[in-house]
């Protein structure tokens, strides 16, 4: 049953997310694209882009979209899909919400506990690996095109990737600006020319 699966999957994604929105993308990608096939890599990338230029946490944005798409793709009416979207967003915050209420205050008074600190140090290291894997998995023909099918698209994709990567690291250019610029480039090169 799709609704139970959405609930269970997004509960898992919520409670195992340490380390911010990009870490959550790695979890969502694994569950939603690789395991359950609720959307393709290209769709996933498109919704990440969309969520960067719309309000709200990335995790909520992607959960909402994934819930809607998964229910539609399972053959239900859009009304059920709207329910699926709310259900997924609700699920992703449910367990952290309970955890915040139960142990939030305790953790606040024990934030200098050395064991807590050690666990967080190692989790932070693992999260770097998680995000790296997420990026590596997205380097695919769906996002970059292929050299044999369309050399222009492939080379432009590499150039756009390199430029955005450099600008983001070196000048901390806003993701919103980078996405909007890349959209303009895409529109001009692939549609107008």
């Amino acid at each position, binding site marked *: 049953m799709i609704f139970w699966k959405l609930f269970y999957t997004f509960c898992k994604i*919520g*409670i*195992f997310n340490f*380390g911010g*929105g*990009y870490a959550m*993308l790695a979890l969502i990608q694994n*569950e939603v694209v690789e395991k359950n096939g609720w959307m393709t890599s*290209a769709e996933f*990338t*498109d919704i990440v*882009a*969309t*969520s960067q*230029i*719309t309000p*709200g*946490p990335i995790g*909520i944005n992607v959960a*909402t979209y994934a819930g809607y798409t998964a229910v539609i793709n399972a053959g239900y009416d859009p009304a059920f899909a*709207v329910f699926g979207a*709310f259900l997924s967003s609700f699920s*992703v915050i449910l367990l*952290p*919400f309970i*955890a*915040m*209420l139960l*142990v*939030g205050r305790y953790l606040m008074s024990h*934030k200098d506990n050395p*064991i807590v600190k*050690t*666990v967080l*140090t*190692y*989790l*932070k290291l693992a999260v*770097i*690996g*998680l*995000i*790296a*894997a997420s990026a*590596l998995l997205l*380097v695919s023909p769906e996002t*970059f095109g292929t050299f044999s099918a369309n050399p222009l698209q492939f080379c432009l994709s590499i150039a*756009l990737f390199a430029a*955005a*990567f450099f600008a983001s*690291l070196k000048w901390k250019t806003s*993701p919103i600006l*980078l*996405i909007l610029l*890349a*959209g303009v*480039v895409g529109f001009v*090169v*692939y*549609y107008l020319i």
Partner: protein
Amino acid sequence: MASIGQLFWSFFKIGTFTIGGGYAMIPLMEKELVDRHRWLTEEEFMEILALSQTMPGIFAANMATHVGWRLRGILGAVVSVIGNILMPILIILALAMGLRYVQGNPVVEAIFKGVRPVVVALIAAPVFRMAKTAHITRYNFWIPVLAALLIWLLGVSPIWVILVTGIGGFLYGKFVEGKEATS
């Protein structure tokens, strides 16, 4: 004292008017909660910020949960979280419905063709930013590398990686570092 309505409205504004993820909300949260309403002192705000980053889940929702709970109990927590995520959900929902009608549209497809490689770059960049602040040494660099390879090449679930790292970190902290501290 904060009323339930005020809490909802404050978090609704915070959720609606910040673009670019949870961390982009911090300045507006500070303005609303500390400067404008004086519900929290600057120090309390920073403490809750650190707690929300430490706890699992979505940072902005964790913030809303704790602040709402602190000011108006469980109901306050529920109302604050709902206020915070309501507008983002509605906007994405509208887009998800709309995108189905423009799927295959050559203009939309052309725009996304340009955007996709940039999204990959935006996910790759924090890897290097975080690596700088995570104190990677030659003794622990294998942890991120192994985690990435397991997920990327072997298809291991990131959840297992988090679980094993968390337990490993706990055992190491308790038995290895704990012993060093007492001896």
